[in-house]
């Protein structure tokens, strides 16, 4: 009954369900899950069936209390059969496993593909498109229908980039680079989150992938390289100046400005275009931005962005500036 209920819930298609793969990696993995599940289910049905039968048929009946059943010690043929059969079933899974492991390690040639350096931080992911000259954070844009090579690294502790509908995860281990590839078959927004415990903010370290047609992807790349110019009037201009005086530029960079040295915080180029903020836990609205700037660790426990005790006026100006980053 639980099984049926579960299946129904899954059929409804939750946003990150592995039963709704959006690319070849996730599809391959789902096929393995289904193959192993059905083979195991078959074994379980046999075991459960024999158990139920045995429990009913060989239950001690009234009057049998003093009787001793035949003291059978073994049956070599039977034992051989029930050793060989599982070996054969597992061999099927073994062959599939090996071929799948190699398929998933078959990255696209880097010179021809989109290669993204995914760097895990406490508690957000940075994305650097190494041969396309774009750096961003929290929201990964990819073109559909092609292999995307991911180079996984960490700036601090272990993390794991996981978007279930696109594929499984490989961990980001500090001091080494790991590799995996993903591919989205259809345009869409795919979400996930960090899947290797990394500290207080681990649960609040979420992932958004925007898979776009090649044309849209190029348009996005272009917008990132040539963002809106620095505001020249109003509150946004005030915010632009406050960005330096409040010390934001020590950690954050924005293309097209003088703020280019900050690398320990997310790159904020095009921030206004992102649907979510703060590691993708809050919708990107002026109110949420203001709350974040007011007290980041209060909004997201463990956040390493400190509470700078900004005045409400400063916050308003900064929000206006950030909302202009298109």
């Amino acid at each position, binding site marked *: 009954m639980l099984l049926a209920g579960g299946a129904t819930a899954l059929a*409804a298609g939750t946003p990150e369900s592995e039963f709704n793969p959006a690319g070849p990696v996730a599809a391959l993995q789902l096929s393995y899950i289904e193959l192993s599940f059905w083979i195991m289910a078959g074994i379980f049905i046999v075991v459960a069936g024999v158990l139920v039968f045995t429990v009913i048929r060989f239950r001690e009946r009234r009057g049998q209390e003093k009787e001793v059943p035949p003291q059978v010690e073994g049956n070599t043929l039977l034992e051989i059969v029930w050793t060989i059969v599982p070996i054969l079933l597992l061999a099927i899974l073994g062959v599939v496993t090996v071929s799948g*492991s190699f398929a998933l390690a078959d990255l696209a040639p880097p010179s021809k593909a989109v290669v993204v350096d995914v760097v895990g931080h406490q508690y957000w992911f940075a994305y650097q498109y190494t041969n396309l000259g774009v750096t961003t954070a929290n929201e990964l844009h990819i073109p559909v229908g092609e292999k995307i090579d991911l180079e996984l690294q960490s700036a601090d502790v272990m993390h794991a980039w996981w978007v*279930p509908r696109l594929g499984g995860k490989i961990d980001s281990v500090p001091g080494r680079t790991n*590799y995996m590839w993903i591919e989205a078959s259809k345009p869409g927004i795919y979400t996930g989150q*960090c899947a290797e*415990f990394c500290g207080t903010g*681990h649960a609040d370290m979420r992932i958004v992938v925007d898979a776009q047609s090649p044309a849209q992807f190029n348009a996005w790349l272009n917008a990132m390289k040539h963002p809106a110019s620095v505001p020249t009037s109003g509150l946004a201009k005030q915010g632009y100046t406050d960005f330096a005086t409040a010390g934001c530029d020590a950690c954050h960079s924005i293309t097209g400005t003088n703020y280019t040295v900050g690398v320990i915080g997310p790159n904020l180029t095009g921030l206004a275009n992102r649907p979510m903020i703060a590691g993708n836990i809050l919708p990107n609205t002026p109110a949420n931005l203001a709350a974040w700037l007011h007290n980041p660790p209060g909004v997201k426990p463990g956040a390493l962005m400190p509470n700078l005790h900004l005045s409400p006026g400063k916050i308003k100006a900064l929000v206006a500036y950030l909302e202009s980053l298109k």
Partner: protein
Amino acid sequence: MAAISKPEAQPHVVEPYEAGKGLWSWLNVVDHKRIAHLYFMASGLFFLTGGSEALLMRIQLFHPNNHFVSAETFNQLFTMHGTTMIFLAVMPLFIAFFNAVVPLMIGARDVAYPRLNALSFWLFLAGGLFLNSSWFLGGAPDAGWFSYAPISTSLYNPGLGIDFYAIGLQIAGIGTLATGVNFLVTILNMRAPGMSLMRLPLFVWTVLVTSVLVILAFPALTVNLFFLMFDRIIGTQFFAVASGGQPLLWANLFWVFGHPEVYILVLPTFGIISEVVSTFSRKPLFGYSTMVLATVSIGFLSFMVWVHHMFTLGYGPWVNSIFALTTMMIAVPTGVKIFNWLATMWGGHIRFSVPMMWVVSFLVTFTIGGMSGVMLAMAPADLQFNDSYFVVAHFHYVMIGGSLFGILAGLYYWFPKITGRMLNETVGKVSFWLVNIGFNVTFFPMHFLGLIGMPRRIYTYAPGLGFTTWNEVATTGAFILGTGFAILVANVIVSLASGPKAVADPWDARTLEWGLPSPVAPYNFSHIPLVRGRDPLWVEKTHGDGRIPAAPGVHEHAPDGTVHMPQPTALPLLMAACITALGYALLYRNLYVAIVAGAVAVYTMHRSMFSPDPGEYMRIAPELETMALEGGAH
């Protein structure tokens, strides 16, 4: 022989009824059966602690974006829950059974090293209390039960939490290693005449293999914990990335220990199930030789699969494929065991007392756990499963549905022998159903949660992802499960105080311990027994007069009818206390206390090596056995 004038070296005669009276007798205990009582009580308490930690987590996860506990507290809860359940509850519960039953099953008077046995208990208790004292002394460890570097290093985890973890486990670990050596020597060297290795009850075989695993796996953890302690306390660079240290060193050493550890946590359950299924089906264990071979193979293979915990660490397709294949290999002997247990039941006359009910539910839940295990072994698929609730579901099915259900079968089975009283069958059945329903309602949905994207170790989750409903179901199940356990514990406590007195052989069983009174006399056997076959008591019931014969040619009674037993001593307690003091000294970086505590610990070790146990002489009371055996089998 004794020309020494020191008072403690003079032998004196002890009445068996006198042994073990008073609080002090619990502190200077060396009798393996009483040590078993201590293990049961302590691990029971730690089990309740771990269970409370679980319930707090389940409350927090009931709603998305819940604020019942903070993120920091939740991280401490899941760390302590896992560490407590594995090291302080399940493993010591098995050691309790080793102590209660193994010497009886092989016809011995005690284990090979009784004082070391006591030390093992005190170190386990000390390590567990040390670890749990962290809650009150500045915060519990919060990096998970496998505490990966670098999140566990002082750079990212200042404060004392991880120090409590490293030092506490180190203290408890010494005790466990000593237990492994103790029981391996006991089983190899102290079997009664006629008890060849291929006549050992299967439970004893599983203890033998488990002991080998303990001996070969724990030193890897010991070294790893030293590295972590050194990095944190004296600034070594084992795991420090900036200077070339290797976080993956921690992961590898941990899982080289950690995988055999989970087989340490399941092999004894296989042994218990084998004993119970055989007794309650009235048939010998089907395919005994195969079961022994399967046990040994599982032990051997358990050292060859550890990388399956690390498929996502980027070792590449060659490494992942090899370890996926070895992991699938280990499923074969495990599956064979399940079929052999079914075949034992087939054709028997099965009685469904509570122990057998636990066996039946074990067969279902452990098989499910095995199924998810094989699914996890497929490395490409594991890239999805890893670090999700699917893994949480898998290991709770094998740890609770496997290890713990076997422990509960053993508890109801051996309770009469250990305590002399029967557990209440009706209450037992009520708690059985509550635990089974609660367990499945809690953990089955977690398979789905993993498959729809919920990672593990998150203190909260967003609404709209489909996680909420299944979390609510799981939390509800957890409270049903908790209620079931509460009733079970109540059954134990009440039955200990006022349960009906047990006869020697309430189950019409097959192994040596059931030929002794319930509870067993301090000296175990009035005469070392002669073993005439596998299932030795059954052999005597079918080919003899139902009594265990004495082994001829064994001359160990003194002329006055007494037998030489180990003398109780508080030396092990003192040694454990010194090691604990040393632990706190390291924690608080106090060199002077550390040196003093260490010196006294070394002195106690010196005493135990160079002041041999003078022993004491205990009177045999054959009337105990006659009275019990006249009670007859039920």
